[in-house]
């Protein structure tokens, strides 16, 4: 049993001491009476003593009981958890849908405004004086239990509902139900009573994007009622910006092939998909230091043909004149029914050049021409085909001299002679990768045993059991592009259409086996040998760190392959480095509602727009980022480390409707068997209908029996007091 007003109960129970205190005080204050006829008094007293004591004890007991029962009545006991009890205080859990789909406009205001109004009305129907309580959970993912456990401060709950803002994340009904179930079970443990009887009000229109009926909801305890506002009746047309994909995430303007091109992917849903539709796409380039740009840098008109639900729109941006560093590409379309998914951001870095360190022994001359090229010479040639070619700065690093200081300013490190890198060198390389660096490794040609693979497994968690010794093929093996696009990864995406033709002349006579032991690593294999072995492997080290390790199965040596003599060598190495640098830097983009992993040293997230900063703790924001925004990731000295772009959750912007039966079945599955089915309110139903039958607003509830008991005992006490006071004798002698 719990109590709606426990303080009143405690005060009342303390008041039980009053009759006793009064009795003691009066006992002390009496002055003695000198009496002569003591012999008769003592004789009478002995005859009456037992009866008198019994009467006085009963009187005191009655008076204490009256006070105690009044105290309990004032405390308003709540049986069966109290909440929503037919005659007790009610508990209402308001699940306010402020997810991205709640911003849908069907006519006048956004649907969110309507459901918020209904939620406020529902809470105002409660009566704090009667012990009613309300809890508030905001559904914008992850679910935010703003007021849990329920509070009797209903005004504060109303204020929180009225000040709630829409988010750009998906509705998290699962998380909300988990929070409620956890709260009710903890209330059970604390009060030792059945916590059932609460009402869960889902204040939302539960469109397809908000109600993922494919995912079951966590179970709620017995006795909980689920009531939902009327779900949306009509589907609404909506176009979302699903992706903004620059050709490269790192652009060196002077490099061949680098352009300001990007692709904006649009998705449309709704009844209008059957018809043609045009939409204007504008792309803005926002400088992190100057905030959002008011003028678009590029523009295009997208035309959906009838029946098409997806469209890729290329947009060309003017290339910046200088290396302006990291920029935010913001693509926007015209407003439609849901404005929150009409803009999306992507990061791009405009760099003057990429700094690439080649870790190999120094060669002082290259007499003999191409025939005597060492692997590092091929690398240099591929990355700097001409003297004039910009975009890549090459630096030589002796394998024995690899340390953190030399690696600090590099965008990429290419290890040509891995066997010559010492233990300290590998430690430095490991740290470099974890900070977001790109590490490219080719097998060494100087020794048959590739002992560096041990360091790879030890330092990077990438275990290559078959790579310790190269295998010589009897017949040269061919190289093939990865047929699975997802498995191929982004490294060679730009040259994917021509890749088949480019790798066809390449033959491999010996190679190391790059098949990973275990599946922990997030690995791409853009190129394969015809034997199925990976030819090119790109793997992120296990864990949440950044960085990328790219392994080539062959050394650029005629004894291994003829790759270095084929035209593919230039685009292959160029793409590995250029795309690899972008990929190694980590995902700058994250979905609303997440806590993205940030670069090491990040201390603060500063938004480009004028909104509050978010602190960073242990490499992640201290709270989930539910709103789409662009942040500058700053270190503890305010230096810019990178960008963090939070984009709306497009999967949650489906404005279709869920059939009521399906909705009821989905919600009902969270309730125990035999429980009342979820109630779907009608459009004109008032929140007063949240009461169960027989329930009255502001009723005294379970206090009535205690009041009645106090009255009965008071009546008994009056009779007993009259008997004990022998008032009839007074009247007889009067």
């Amino acid at each position: 049993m719990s109590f709606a007003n426990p303080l009143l109960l405690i005060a009342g129970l303390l008041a039980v001491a009053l009759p006793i205190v009064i009795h003691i005080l009066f006992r002390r204050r009496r002055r003695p009476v000198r009496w002569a006829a003591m012999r008769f008094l003592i004789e009478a007293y002995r005859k009456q003593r037992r009866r008198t004591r019994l009467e006085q004890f009963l009187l005191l007991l009655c008076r204490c009981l009256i006070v105690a029962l009044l105290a309990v009545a004032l405390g308003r006991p709540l049986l069966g958890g109290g909440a929503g009890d037919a005659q007790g205080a009610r508990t209402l859990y308001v699940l306010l849908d402020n997810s991205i789909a709640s911003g849908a406009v069907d006519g006048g205001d956004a649907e969110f405004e309507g459901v918020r109004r209904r939620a406020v009305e529902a809470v105002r129907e409660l009566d704090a004086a009667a012990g009613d309580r309300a809890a508030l959970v905001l559904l914008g993912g992850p679910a935010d239990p703003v007021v849990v456990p329920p509070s009797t401060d209903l005004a504060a709950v109303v204020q929180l509902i009225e000040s709630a803002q829409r988010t750009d994340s998906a509705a998290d009904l699962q998380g909300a139900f988990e929070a409620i179930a956890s709260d009710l079970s903890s209330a059970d443990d604390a009060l030792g009573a059945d916590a059932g009887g609460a009402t869960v009000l889902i204040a939302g229109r539960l469109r397809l994007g908000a109600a993922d009926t494919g995912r079951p909801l966590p179970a709620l305890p017995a006795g909980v009622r689920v009531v939902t506002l009327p779900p949306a009746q009509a589907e609404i047309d909506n176009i979302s910006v699903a992706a903004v994909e620059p050709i490269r995430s790192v652009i060196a303007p002077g490099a061949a092939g680098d352009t300001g091109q990007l692709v904006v992917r649009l998705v449309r849903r709704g009844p209008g998909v059957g018809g043609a539709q045009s939409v204007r796409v504008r792309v803005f380039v926002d400088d992190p230091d100057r905030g959002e740009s008011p003028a678009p840098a590029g523009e295009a008109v997208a035309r959906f043909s009838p029946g098409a639900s997806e469209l890729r729109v290329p947009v060309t941006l003017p290339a910046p004149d200088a290396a302006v560093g990291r920029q935010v590409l913001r693509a926007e379309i015209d407003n439609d029914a849901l404005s929150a998914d009409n803009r999306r951001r992507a990061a791009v870095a405009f760099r003057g050049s990429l700094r690439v360190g080649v870790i190999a022994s120094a060669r002082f001359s290259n007499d003999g021409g191409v025939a005597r090229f060492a692997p590092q010479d091929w690398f240099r040639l591929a990355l700097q085909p001409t003297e004039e070619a910009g975009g890549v700065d090459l630096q030589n690093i002796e394998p024995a001299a690899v340390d953190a200081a030399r690696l600090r300013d590099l965008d990429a490190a290419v290890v040509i002679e891995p066997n010559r890198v010492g233990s300290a060198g590998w430690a430095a390389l490991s740290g470099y990768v974890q900070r977001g660096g790109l590490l490219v490794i080719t097998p060494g040609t100087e020794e048959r045993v590739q002992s560096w693979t041990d360091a790879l497994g030890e330092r990077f968690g990438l275990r290559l059991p078959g790579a310790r010794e190269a295998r010589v093929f009897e017949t040269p093996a061919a190289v093939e592009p990865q047929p699975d696009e997802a498995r191929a990864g982004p490294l060679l995406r730009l040259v994917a259409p021509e890749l088949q033709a480019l790798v066809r002349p390449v033959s491999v006579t010996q190679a190391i086996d790059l098949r990973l032991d275990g599946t922990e690593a997030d690995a791409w294999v853009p190129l394969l040998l015809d034997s199925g072995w990976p030819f090119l492997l790109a793997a992120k080290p296990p864990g949440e760190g950044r960085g990328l390790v790219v392994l080539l199965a062959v050394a650029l040596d005629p004894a291994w392959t003829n790759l270095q003599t084929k035209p593919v060598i230039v685009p292959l190495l160029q793409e590995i480095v250029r795309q690899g640098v972008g990929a190694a830097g980590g995902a700058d983009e994250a979905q609303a509602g997440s806590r993205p992993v940030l670069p090491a040293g990040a201390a603060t997230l500063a938004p480009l727009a004028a909104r509050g900063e978010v602190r960073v703790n242990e490499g992640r924001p201290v709270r989930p980022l539910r709103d789409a925004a662009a942040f500058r990731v700053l270190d503890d000295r305010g230096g810019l480390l990178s960008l963090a772009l939070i984009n709306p959750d497009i999967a949650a912007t489906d404005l279709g409707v869920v059939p009521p039966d399906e909705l009821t079945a989905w919600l009902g599955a969270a309730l125990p068997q035999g429980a009342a089915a979820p109630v779907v309110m009608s459009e004109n139903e008032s929140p007063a209908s949240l009461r169960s039958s027989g329930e009255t607003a502001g009723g005294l509830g379970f206090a009535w029996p205690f009041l009645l008991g106090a009255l009965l005992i008071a009546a008994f006490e009056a009779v007993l007091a009259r008997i004990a006071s022998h008032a009839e004798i007074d009247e007889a002698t009067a």
Partner: protein
Amino acid sequence: MPDAAASVPPADQPAAAPSEPARGDAPATGSGGGPERIDASDYLHPQTLARLGTFELRAKMIVEGIAAGAHRSPHSGVSVEFAQHRPYTPGDDLRHLDWKVYAKTDKLQLKQYQQETNLDLMLLVDASGSMAYGSRSFADASGSGRKLSPDGRTNWTKFDHATACAAALAYITLRQGDRAGLVTFSDDIHATVPRSSQRSTWKQVVDALAAARPSEQPTDIRRVVDQTLGQIGNRCLFVILSDLFEDPEAIKTALAHIKHRRHDAICFQVVDDSELNFDFTDTAPFEGFEGEPGIRLDPRAIRRAYQQAFGEHRERVERTCRGFGFDYHLVRTHGWLGPTLAEFISRRNALIGRSGR
């Protein structure tokens, strides 16, 4: 000391002249030898004296007179000498009416005779602790405007009432020429005034009463009666003035001894109205005057049982008295002494007259 107000009529009655107490052959008013001035008016209010003046206290038996002129009962024959007439009062024996005077004057006059036998009156006044109780205010009892007793009390105690009663009886006895003596007691005899019919006896009695104070001892009436009987040779009328809060068996024994020695006795049980009614309402601790254990109780809760116990005791005492042929009279301290005594003496004398003794 008690005031004459013990026998003062209610305040609405006219007060008598101050010279009245010393009239006739009443014992002279005197000043005691003690530090306080004792006046007969302190004990006997003029109204009381006027009321009692014509009464004679008689014993039920033939008194053996030791003084000169001792004879048999004056009621048995002719051996009486006419003394005077006095007005008839209700209760007087009609046989003593002087019909001749009635025929001449149309007034009822009673013939009085010179008494030839002596009555010895022995007053036993209880001065035990319980006699110190009194709920009546002194101002109410005095009726003369005095609010405090000479010793500073504001209440009128049973002992005050008993001493006033004793003084009145001694006055009557001495006035009719008989002998009177006094004993004050509790568990032992406190003071004694030997029987005498001299004029100074009244002063001795009043002095002894003025000097007496209730002690904190209980009553032992059996012992006191035995001690008193040991000092008396001739037959006496014992007047016991006490609340008689004692074991009824002890009272019975004492009265049996008196009866055995062929004395007459009158028991005046002096009680306060509060002791009769027990009309307290608030719970309080009650403490005794004679060292009884104190108890806290709700008076209303035990009133009925108390009244029952008290009533049973009183009835038993009365039955005991009457069983020995003695008179018993309940004297309430809230009542007026004069009319009460007058009525009692009148009824007693009438009873003796009818019995032919």
